[in-house]
């Protein structure tokens, strides 16, 4: 089996649930203090993804970037060399949709061949939802990126979103 590694970034506003998605997807290795100190926390997950009628063992190095304005200057360097990004927004906060295009722009500016997947998180909070599925689909369509309605809390579509990103990264 071929073994490959790929760097993927998690982008999104503060408190949309990026870290929770990573926690749900992988076993947490490092303390959260890394995140607050330098604005990034790296985790790893090995997944098997299909490619050309074969299976590739893909090690995803997940760079969970702090979603805060103070790290904006640093973020560009953290994006370098990434094969793709999971852009996360919050279905209960409409304002988190505003920056999706900016994250996508930053990513493709640094890595023109990077692939994107959109994750609309907190789909379990049905009562508090203010963003409709159609709006997410429309944004995803503009970005030409697949989208998933996820819930890190109850584990809905988290694996699928990351695996899709892995498949796209391998297929580059």
């Amino acid at each position, binding site marked *: 089996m071929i073994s490959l*590694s790929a*760097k993927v970034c998690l982008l999104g506003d503060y408190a949309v649930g990026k870290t929770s998605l990573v926690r749900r997807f992988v076993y947490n290795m490092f303390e959260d203090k890394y995140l607050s100190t330098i604005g*990034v926390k790296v*985790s790893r997950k090995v997944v098997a993804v299909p490619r050309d009628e074969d299976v590739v063992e893909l090690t995803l190095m997940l760079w969970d970037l702090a979603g805060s304005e103070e790290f904006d200057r*640093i973020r560009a360097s953290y994006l*370098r*060399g990434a094969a793709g990004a999971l852009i996360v927004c919050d279905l209960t906060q409409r304002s988190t949709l505003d920056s999706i295009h900016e994250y996508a722009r930053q990513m493709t500016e640094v890595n023109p061949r990077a692939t994107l997947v959109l994750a609309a998180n907190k789909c379990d909070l049905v009562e508090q939802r203010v963003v409709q599925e159609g709006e997410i689909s429309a944004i995803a369509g503009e970005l030409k990126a697949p989208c998933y309605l996820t819930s890190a809390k109850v584990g809905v579509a988290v694996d699928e979103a990351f695996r899709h990103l892995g498949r796209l990264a391998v297929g580059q």
Partner: protein
Amino acid sequence: MDTARGTEPEGDRIDDALLDDLREIVTGPDRERMRLLEARIAQVEHRTGDHEALVAAVSPILGDAIRRQVREDRDEMVESLYPIIGQLITRAVAEAIRDLARNIDHRMRTSFSPTYFLRRLRARARGVSGAELALRDALPFKVVELFLIHRESGLLLLHLPQEELSAPGVEDNSDLVSSMLTAIRDFAQDAFGQDQQGGLDEIQYGDRRILIEALQHAYLAVVVDGIEPSGFRTKLREQGIEIENAYREILRDYNGDASQLDAAQPNLARLLDDGFFEESEAEDLSPDQKRIAAGLVFVLTLCVLGACLGGAIWARNALKRPAYYIVVTATPGPVATATATTAPTVTPAATATPTVTITPSPTATQTPTNTATVTASPTATRTAGPAPSAQIAVVANVRAGPSLTSTIIERAAIGNTYTVLGRDETGGWLQVCCTTRGDTGWLAAALATISGSMESVPIVGEE
């Protein structure tokens, strides 16, 4: 009687009740205090029985008490603790000195060897005594781990631990370490290195250090214990440049497949070999020593040439053999063309075409009758296009020759652009122009981004 018998116990009961009341009034508070005390004793007994709980309860108090005592009466604390700590320190220092002495003894016992004399020479040349050099050599140094990391993505390309992670349950987190290390480098560069050249090249934690050597598309991170020998960095850089040269294409468009760099493992494994640096240290000479050595080589070469020339003249006169004359003529040629010919006649023509003709002259004692004249026969003609340029990707040294041992003539900043005039046979070194003084120099190709075609760049030797 019955009545009397019947009322007596009733009276007793009343008396008992009164006595109880009285007892309660007199001893009640004491009994309550007793009950509370018993409860507290039981609690203390429980705590002293539970070791962990006892430690947890006492630790903060003990810590505070010691801190206060140190603050208020340091001398008394030192005196109190000296019998314990002083003894421990004395023992530890004595053990370290014994180790050092054993190490030096071992070196002295094996000192009657060519290496010993080389060391003595090195010591003299560096202005230190043999004992001081032996002491320096005896200081411990160990490469613990080595990482080759892709510079942009932080993905791990190669990892060489000194000891294999063979213990069950020990997870290899080297890829996470390489990513975090890259994040820390990027953070340091972004936070502190704005508008500055270079980058993070060392991290220290406790007795260990991570030495970082940046290349064009990758970087080496070496975890070391102790003080590295002189020349370590040079050797590290040299190995890095070799790998960068050999795997340039793979590293530039890295696809995440680290197995493509498996063949580079032996190169890096050499860095984990303790003996490797002893050799490299012997090769490492100061600029003064290099000048002296170069002077000696020059004088020796002159002597040898003189001896050869003298011998040749003597032989010609003595044996009266025919001499061979070399006639060099020059004719104008086309501008900016290069003409390669087969040996023994070579006709490079930039602005002129020199022709070398070898003509043996017969004499009375020999019978060579043929006069051989070889003329130029061009086999390939190339028209030179615009010269490619090399833009400095990391801080680099421009050297007098295509070697890491050549003299540094200029330190090139990131972004500096040079015109490429030539390259060495391996393609690892580029002859570039011009330095700030207008000279040509040599630059390691791995440290620059090349623009333009290298096909037309000629292979040239060191000037």
